[in-house]
C-alpha cells in the first residue's frame, strides 16, 4: 500500500510542477518582457516541463532498467535536432538570400 501512495505522490508532484512551469510560460506574455527574454523563458520552461513529465509520468530515470528507453529517447532527440534544426537553418538561410 505504501508503494502505491508513493507512486501517487509522484504523479501529483509531476502535475504540480507542470502547472507551475506552464504558469511561468504563460505569464511571460502579459508581463511584456523583452522578446528575447520571453522566448528564453518559454523555451526553458518547456524543456523543464518535458523533463518533468518524462520523469514523473513516463517514469524515465537514470536507473538501469530504464537505460534502454532513455538511450532511445536521447538518440531520437539527436535526430530530431538534426532534422528540425537543419530544416530551420536551411530554410531561413534560403529565404534571406531570395528576397
Amino acid at each position, binding site marked *: 500500500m505504501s508503494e502505491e501512495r508513493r507512486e501517487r505522490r509522484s504523479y501529483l508532484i509531476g502535475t504540480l510542477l507542470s502547472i507551475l512551469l506552464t504558469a511561468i510560460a504563460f505569464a511571460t506574455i502579459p508581463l511584456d518582457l523583452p522578446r528575447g527574454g520571453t522566448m528564453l523563458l518559454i523555451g526553458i520552461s518547456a524543456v523543464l516541463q518535458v523533463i518533468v513529465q518524462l520523469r514523473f509520468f513516463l517514469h524515465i530515470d537514470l536507473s538501469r532498467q530504464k537505460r534502454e528507453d532513455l538511450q532511445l529517447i536521447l538518440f531520437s532527440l539527436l535526430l530530431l535536432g538534426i*532534422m528540425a534544426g537543419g*530544416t530551420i537553418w536551411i*530554410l531561413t538561410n534560403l529565404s534571406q538570400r531570395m528576397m
Partner: protein
Amino acid sequence: MKLLGNLNWDVTPFSDAINDPSTNTFVAAGAASLVIIGAVSVLILLTWFRLWRPLWRDWLTSADHKRIGVMYIVLALVMLARGVAEGAVMRGHQAMALNGGPLSADHFSELFSTHGTIMILFVAMPLVTGLINIVVPLQIGARDMAFPVMNQVSLGLTAAGAALIMVSLVIGRFETGGWTAYPPYTGKVFSPGEGPDYWIWSVVPAGLGSMLSGINFAVTIYKCRAPGMTYMRMPLFTWTALCTAIMMIYAMPPVTVSSLMLALDRYAGFHFFSNDLGGNMMNYANIFWMFGHPEVYILVLPAYGVWSEVAATFSAKQLYGYVSLVTATMSIAVISFTVWLHHFFTMGQSASVNIAFGIATMIIAVPTGVKVYDWMATLWRGRIRMTVPVIYLTGFFILFVIGGLTGVILANPTIDYQVHNTLFLVAHFHNVLIPGVLFGMLAGIHYWFPKVFGFRLDETWGARAAGLWVVGFCLTFLPLYVLGLMGMPRRSPSFTDPAYLPMEYLAAFGAVVILGALAATFTTYIVSIRHRKWLAVPLGDPWDGRTLEWATPAPVPEWNFAVIPEVSSRDAFALEKEGGTPYAPVSRYADITLPRRTTMGLTVCVATTGTGFALVWHIWWLVILCFTGLLLTMIARAFATNTEQIIPAAEVARQHRRWLDAIAQNTGITRDAECTSANRGLAAPDEVIR
C-alpha cells in the same frame, strides 16, 4: 454526384490507342495489356494447378517470417520486371531521340517517374525487407519476428502501394515529375490530372509499411536474441539490418509527411508548396530528401551485410575487422541523417550551408572505404571459391568504388553545380544502386536460397547471369557519365546535339545485354526448380556456413529451431564444427507457441488499395467504405482471441531427430564438391593445408 468520381472509359490507354493510333499510344496500350494478360494468366494458372488453397493457407495468411520474406521478394521480382522493361524502353527511346523520338514527351516522363518510384520503393525496398525478414530471426536464434502479425500488415501496405502503381498503367496516368515529385509542378495547378495522386497514394502506404517493418526488425534484434548472443557476437548481416531498421524508423516519417502535405495542397487547397499565398516549395525538397538520402543507405547497408557474410564464408575465413565493420555501419547510419542537402546544393543557400553538408557527405566515404578494405582483407589469405555470390562480390568491388568516387565528386558543391540534374548524376546512382544494392541482393538470394527452399540455385546459369549483369551494367551506365559531362540533362525526352548519339547507342546496346541478363536470371530459377532433386541440400549447410542459420535443416521448419541455441562466440556454428559438437542431440523438447494464420495483412492490403484508388478518382463513398473497413479491421483485431497455435513437443522432436539421423548417416563433402550433386548440405572438414 458522380458515382464513379472522375472515372470513365477515356482514362484507359486503350481508348487513346483507338482515338490516336501511333507508336506512342500503342506502347502504352501494349503495356496495359501486358498487365491485364499477366494478371489473368496468373489467375488461370492458379486455378489450373489447383493452387488456390495452398496459396491461401501457406502464403497469404501465413505469419511466418520466412514466408513473408519470400512474398516480399516475389513482389519485388514482379515489379522488377516492369522496372527493367521501362529502363530498356527509356534507353531505346533516347537512342532515337535526336530531335524527337518514338514516344511522346508525356509518356517518357511517366516512364522515368514510374521507373524511379518502382525501383526504389517497390523493388529495392522489398528485396531488402524480404531478405532481412528471412535471415535475421535465423541468425539471432529467434522463433519469429517480435510482431508477426504486424509483419504481415507491413507487407500488405507495401503490396497495396505496388498494386496502385500497377493499376495506374491500365486506368489513367501516372505522375510525370520523377520519383521525387517536386511541387509546384506536381501541384493541382500544373498537374491537374490524377497522376500525382497515384504517386502519393502509392508512396504513403509503402512508407508506413517500411516504418512498421523498421520497428519490427529493431525490436526483434533488441529483444529476441538467443541467450548468449550479445551485440558483439551478432553476425554482420544482422548488424546492418539493425542499422537499416533504425533508419527506417526515423527516415520514413518525413516522406509520409511531405506526401500528405502535397495531398492537402492538391485535394484541399492548402498552401504548403504552392506558388501563391506563402507556399514554400523549397521545403518540399528539404523534407523529401530528409527521407530520400537515408533511404539510399537503407538500401545499401543490408547489401553491405551480405558482402560480409559472403566474403567470410566463401574464403573460408573469419571476417576481418568485425569491430571496424560494426563501427563503420553505425557511423554510416548516423551520418546519413546529416547530409540531405547535397541533393539541392544548387537551390541558392549560402556557401557555408553547402560546405557543412558537403563535408558531412564526404565523411561517409571513410567508413565505406573501411568496409571495402575489410572485405579485401577478409579475402586475403583465404581459400576463395569463385561461386556466384563471389562473382557478384567482384563486380561490386570494381564497379561500386567507381560509383562511390563519383558520389564524392558530386559531394563537392563546386562540381555539383555543373553535373547536378545531368546524366552524370543518373550514372552515379545507378552505379551505386545496381552494383551495390541489386548485386548484393542477388548474391544474398543465391546464398540463402537453399536455406529457404531446400535446394541450391544452378551455378552455371547463375554465373552466366552474373557475368551479363556486370557487362550490361558497364555498357549501359558508364556512357552516361560522358553524356553528363557533356551537359545532357536527366529526364530528357529528346535532344538536339548529335554529339550525344554514339554514347546513346552504346547505352541502348547495354540495355539489350541487361535484358539478356534478366532473362538469364529467370532461367536460373527455372532450371534450378527443374533440377531441384539434384540440387537438394536437405541437411541445411551447403556452403560450410559460419552463422546460426546454417545449423538448421533446409527448408527450415516453421519454428526455426527445435530448441533455442545457446551462443558463446561469434561465428558460433563454425566454431562448433571445428572443435565442438555440432548437431548434438537434444534431451528435452518443449511445446512451441507460434502465431496462428490470419487474414489481417490481406485485409489491410485490400482496404488500403481500395482507399488509395478511390482517393485518386475522388470516389468519396468508396473512400469512406474502405477506410472504415480498415479502421474496423484494426479495432476488431484488438478483440481477437485464440491467436496462437501450439506445436507439440513430440512433433518437434520427431522432425528434429529425423534430421539428426540423416546427418549421422551422411559423410558430408569437402568444398571441392560444393557445386555438385554430392552436396546434400553437410560440410566435411576441409583437407589440411597442402
